[in-house]
Structure formats: structure tokens, C-alpha cells
């Protein structure tokens, strides 16, 4: 015979003063876990969300990141008229030869300096990346020292409003527009004319080539052709795959989250245990009565465990709610791939919230195991006699 579930729930609410602290404790643990993991999710979503499936990126063999890659002009000339590359209406290949430069710029409010990734692109580089849209001002004019900055970067760096200018490499660059990359890695970039960038920053080579393949078959053929051409020390890969593989920055955050969760959950288990022991101790007589009424030991055991689990679940739910306001909040740190400031968001996914809840239930169940055992083993007569 099972005890009605409401008995457990009402018990939790009845001793609210004692349980409140535990519920809050579990809530904070879960909130920390969810928040830290949501950063890792945000970082991964940002890189996983970048690129167009029709595009192929070409970088130097051996380079782990686009920013450390080099593509020579000779290599560009060799590749650009290959038939696997799509053309526009005027017959020009859809290819952007990009140069990536890190420049050191001051953050807003004297908050130190950081590297910003500047991407010099060919004019066709803009339509090749349809997920990037202009949200203010205009695009840069080729041949001029003008830049378009990401809206999210602009919130973090000084002199990034439209009309502002900053100097780097001894030249002055003017901000003429702001763009939005729809939560992709492009949200951490500044775009300008590729040839101007190469001249200002004294770059002989390009960093990478981005091309649009004619179709799916063309894309595979293009990648294969690059691989097969022994003159070319470069490799081609799908743009989306390149970005999706950039997960190095998220790793330490994930490790931190797991470490914190483990250590804090031990504390939370102790708290839950304490509360449940007290709860069992204060209803010794009640439990004795239940036994006399015919409820079995294992029913009592299960009952206390359910109670502990529910208590912690309550905390877990509160914790998820506590972390929710941070959802979508934009933050930034150094990317280990590009060595520049990367902007991303706290992303609390349903899956992450579910993980948090599961985590809290485990804390509750583990914490109530010993108290439940004790409750189920109470000698009936002594229990009844106790005050």
C-alpha cells in the first residue's frame, strides 16, 4: 500500500521554515550550474550558428585557425576561376579573399584593452554571408578606410558608434555602419575593405578564401580538387564545419561548471541530509503510527526519499527561475581560437534546465537516502512512545 503523494508534498510545505534554507541552497547550486553551462552553450551556439552551408573555406594546411592561415596571391589566382565555384550575373566568381588582423583597442569605460578581430573582405564577401545584416549606417566603400562594426562589439568597445573613428597601424579608420550577425561568430568581428586592410596592416598574403560552390556536388568536387592539387599547401572545408569545430574556448568553461557543480552538490547533499534527518526526527511518532496502520518499511523509505527529491526539485525549479533573467545577456571573453574578444550570450536551453532539475533531484535523493533508511528502521513501539 502506497502513501498518497500529497502526504509527502504537504510535509515539505508544513515544515517550511526548516526546508526553506535547503530549498534555497539547492536553488543556488542549480542556478550556478545552469548559468555556467549556459555560457558554454552560448559559445557553442555562436560558433555552431556561423556560416552558410553552400560555402567552402580555404585555409593553409596546418593552420588551426583562420587568423593564423596564409593564402598567397598566386594560390588565389590558381583557384579563382575553377568551374566548381559559382559565378554572379556578371560572370565574376563568388569568392572573397579575406585578410584577418587583430587590433588592440580600448574597451568602454576604461575597462582595459582587448584584441578585436578585423576582417578585410572582397565586396562579394558581404552577400556570401547572408546571415550578417546591416542594422545602422551603411556598408564600407571599397578603397576607403571605413569599417562596419558588429553591434554587439560596439556595446563593449570605445569609439565604435557610427561616425566615430579610431586609429590603428598609424592610420585612422572611420566607423560608417553597424551590423548584426544573428548570434554567430561574426558578432565578434569588424569588417572593412580587404585591400585597404592589407595595405594598412602591411599584409602581403590573404588569410583565407571563402567561395560559394555551384551546388552540393560542386562543393564536394571543389574540396576534393583542392586536396588533390599538390601545388596547393591549402585545404578546403565547409564553412559551417570550420566554425562548428571551434569549441576550444567553451571547454574550460564546461570544466569549471562541472567542477563547481560537483563541489557545490556535495554541500547541498549535506544540507538536504540535515533537513531530512530533522524532519524524520520530529515525526518519529507519526512514522510509528503509520507503521501500526500497516504501512510497510519500504513504503516509509520510499516516502522519505520522494519527500527529499521533491524538496530538492523545488529548489531546482527555483534555481532555474533564478538563472532565467540572465538568458540572452551578452558577455565576452578572449577566444582561444582567434585570440580576440568573442561576444556571446548566456543561452538557457530547455535541455539545460532539464539537466539542472535532474541534478537537483539527484541531490535530494542522495541526501535523503540515509534519513529514509533511519525512518524505515525505527522500532514501532519506541517510536510510538517518543514525544
Amino acid at each position: 500500500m502506497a502513501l498518497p503523494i500529497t502526504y509527502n508534498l504537504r510535509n515539505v510545505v508544513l515544515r517550511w521554515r526548516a526546508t526553506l534554507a535547503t530549498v534555497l541552497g539547492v536553488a543556488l547550486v542549480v542556478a550556478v550550474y545552469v548559468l555556467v553551462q549556459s555560457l558554454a552553450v552560448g559559445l557553442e551556439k555562436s560558433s555552431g550558428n556561423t556560416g552558410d552551408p553552400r560555402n567552402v573555406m580555404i585555409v593553409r594546411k596546418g593552420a588551426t585557425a583562420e587568423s593564423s592561415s596564409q593564402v598567397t596571391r598566386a594560390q588565389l589566382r590558381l583557384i579563382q576561376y575553377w568551374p566548381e565555384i559559382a559565378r554572379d550575373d556578371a560572370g565574376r566568381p563568388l569568392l572573397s579573399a579575406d585578410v584577418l588582423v587583430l587590433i588592440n583597442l580600448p574597451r568602454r569605460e576604461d575597462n582595459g584593452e582587448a584584441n578585436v578581430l578585423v576582417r578585410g573582405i572582397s565586396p562579394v564577401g558581404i552577400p556570401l554571408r547572408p546571415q550578417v545584416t546591416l542594422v545602422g549606417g551603411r556598408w564600407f566603400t571599397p578603397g576607403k578606410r571605413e569599417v562596419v562594426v558588429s553591434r554587439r562589439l560596439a556595446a563593449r568597445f570605445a569609439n565604435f558608434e557610427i561616425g566615430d573613428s579610431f586609429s590603428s597601424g598609424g592610420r585612422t579608420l572611420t566607423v560608417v555602419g553597424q551590423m548584426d550577425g544573428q548570434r554567430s561568430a561574426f558578432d565578434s568581428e569588424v569588417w572593412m575593405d580587404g585591400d585597404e586592410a592589407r595595405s594598412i596592416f602591411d599584409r602581403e598574403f590573404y588569410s583565407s578564401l571563402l567561395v560559394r560552390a555551384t551546388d552540393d556536388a560542386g562543393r564536394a568536387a571543389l574540396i576534393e580538387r583542392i586536396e588533390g592539387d599538390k601545388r596547393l599547401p591549402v585545404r578546403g572545408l565547409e564553412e559551417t564545419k570550420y566554425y562548428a569545430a571551434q569549441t576550444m574556448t567553451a571547454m574550460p568553461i564546461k570544466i569549471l561548471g562541472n567542477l563547481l557543480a560537483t563541489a557545490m552538490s556535495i554541500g547541498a547533499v549535506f544540507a538536504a541530509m540535515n533537513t531530512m534527518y530533522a524532519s524524520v526526527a520530529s515525526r518519529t511518532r507519526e512514522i510509528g503510527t503509520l507503521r501500526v496502520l500497516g504501512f510497510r518499511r519500504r513504503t516509509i523509505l520510499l516516502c522519505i526519499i520522494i519527500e527529499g527529491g521533491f524538496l530538492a526539485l523545488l529548489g531546482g525549479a527555483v534555481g532555474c527561475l533564478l538563472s532565467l533573467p540572465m538568458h540572452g545577456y551578452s558577455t565576452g571573453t578572449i577566444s582561444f581560437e582567434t585570440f580576440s574578444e568573442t561576444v556571446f550570450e548566456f543561452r538557457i536551453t530547455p535541455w539545460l534546465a532539464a539537466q539542472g532539475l535532474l541534478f537537483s533531484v539527484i541531490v535530494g535523493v542522495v541526501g535523503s537516502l540515509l534519513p529514509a533508511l533511519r525512518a524505515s528502521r525505527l522500532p514501532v513501539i519506541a517510536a510510538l512512545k517518543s514525544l
Partner: protein
Amino acid sequence: MTIAGFIVKNALRNKRRALLCILSVAVSLFLLVSLLVALREITLPPEDVGAAARIIVRNKVSLASPLPARQRAVLERIPGVEAVTPFTFYGGKFRDEDFPKFAQFAVDPKEFMRIVVEAKMQVDQLDAFLKDQRACIVGKITADKYGLKIGDRLNFIGTLWPCDLELKMVGTYQGTIDDRNLFFNHKYFDEAMGNLGQVGTWWVKARSIDDMPDVLDRINRAFANTSAEVRAETERAFQMSMVSMWGNIKILVRSICSVVVFTLLLVSASTMSMAIRERFRELAVLKAIGFQRREIFGFILAESFGLAAVGALLGIGGAWAFFTHISISKLTDGIFVAFEVTPQIMGVAGTVAAALGIVSALAPAIAMARMSVVDGLKTLD
């Protein structure tokens, strides 16, 4: 029975609860100390690096932009400059690793040893490093991690520069702030790059600490209005600028610290009040037989303070023992090196524990003070 004995007996009469309380305090303080140590490691370069009168010169655009090798002659003529070495980050993948797990720098061996004086090496190994252009020296931490021996051939695939290198290990060094790095001859790097004529940064030794501001100024002015303007800064300022790049991660770790402290407070305060509420009747008896409020408050305070102190001893002491006796660089695959539990951090954690003991005693003490003796005596549980 003495008063101290009374307090200890009271604290331990529910042994299980006392243990749980102590353990949760200990675990939380251990976590707090670990976080503070990690935060210190990523935000604070060691204090003593200023003593070496070192200047780091990088491209004004950013650290990622190289400098022309021809600047060396200009640098060496600047008054107050004692030694100059190129210092180029090579960033090679070692053997079949996926990404560079330790840093390799190309330097001028002779000048390097004059500038980084704290690097301790055996004389014969140093000799080999100076003579052989393909030689390299490896920091002790990295050498131990990979089990590298003198005479080993080390192969690297360049991720940053389009050249692969084969270096011959001729020695190990230790005593620098980061004994993980590998150093090799810049001449070999130049050769492999086809005499590109570029270096990553310059490391400069000033004649004395007092000369530093002037030397910094002279270097910055020397290359103003050239194709490669530079930013010269002290080693400490350079490292602080690296720290600044961590961005919001610092705030994140700091807020986690405060949440940990708050959770800790919540849990132990509730345990404490639970323990007091159970013995309201006894406390009423104490009051009835003439103990004063502040005496009883003293009992409660001493008990909660004692529990917190034992927890602190276990947690902080445990953290200290743990991080002092294990190799943190092995544990985190080289992400953290020193992980030093400083007296200051132990002090902070100790203060938190003390505050915890006091605050947890407050709520039950107030409840007890408000209670009338008659009500207290009537309480059943």
C-alpha cells in the same frame, strides 16, 4: 561541568548533525579557496616580475602583428638599453597533438640568458644551447610532462607560421614564472621562414629600474611615425594587458564566489537554528535557573563559532595541503601552473568562516532572547 565542556557537549550531542554541518562548511570553504586561487592565477601576474627591469616591445596594432627585424639595431643604440632579444611566439603543434599545448619561442640564446636571468640551467647545457643553431631548451614542467630527455628530436608543425621545425633538446631550465615554455634559436626560425625578417616581440633589459620610464619613452618615440610603431611596456604592464583580455570571465568567477559564500551561510545558519530550536525547552530551563540572556547568547555563539572553525580548519587546511602537495599543472593539463594558496586567500576564507559562525548564531539567539521562559518550558519538541 565547566562552561567550555557544556558548550562542547552541546555541540556534539547530535553528532551526525555536527558532522554534516562541519563537512558542508569545509566543502564550501575548500571550493571558495580553489576559486580565489584560480582567480588570482588568471588575474594577477606574480608581483616580483618587476624586479628584472624587463621591457616588452610589441607592435602597436596588436600582439599578433609582427615587427621588422631591422628594429634591433635601433633598439640596441637607445641609451639605457642593456640587452635586446627577439621573442617570437612560434605556436607549433608538438608531435601528433591537435593544438599547441605549450608555447615555443624563438630567441637569441645569448641575449635571452642575459635578460631572463632567473632561468637556471646547467653550464654544459647552456653551452650547447648557445652553440647549436637547432638546439632548444625546455621548461622543467613540460620536460617532465612528456618525459623528454637531452638529445631528443622534437618535431613541430607550425600553426601560426607556415614552417615546420625539428629541434634538438639540449637542456632544461627552471626558476622562471612559467617553466612550461620551450626556447630555441631565432636564427633557425629565420632560416625555416626563408629569412622573412620578422619577429614577434622584442624583450629588452634596461640598465636599472630607475631608467625604465625613460627607456620606455625613448623606445616608443624611436619608432613613432614608422611603418611599424611599437608599444613598449614593463613586463608587469604587459601581463596585466593579457589579463584584461579575459574580459567578463573574472566577474563571473567573482560572482560565483559570492554565491558560494551565500549558500554556505544559508545552509549553516539553518542547521544552527535547527539545533537551537530543538532545545528551546532546555534554554528556558537555563533562563529559569538564572542564566542571563547574554550568557546564553555566548553559549550559542561559541557553539556555532566552534563548528565553523572546525569546518574552516578542514576546508582551508585541506585546500592548502591539497594544492601544495599535488601537481596542479599535471591535473589540469598545464592550464594552471602555480595554484598557490597565499596567506591572504586563507585570511579571506578564514574571515568568511568567522562571519559565518557569528551570523548563524544571530537568528536563533534572537529567537531565544524573545522567548518568554514560560513559553519555552511549554515547548514540546
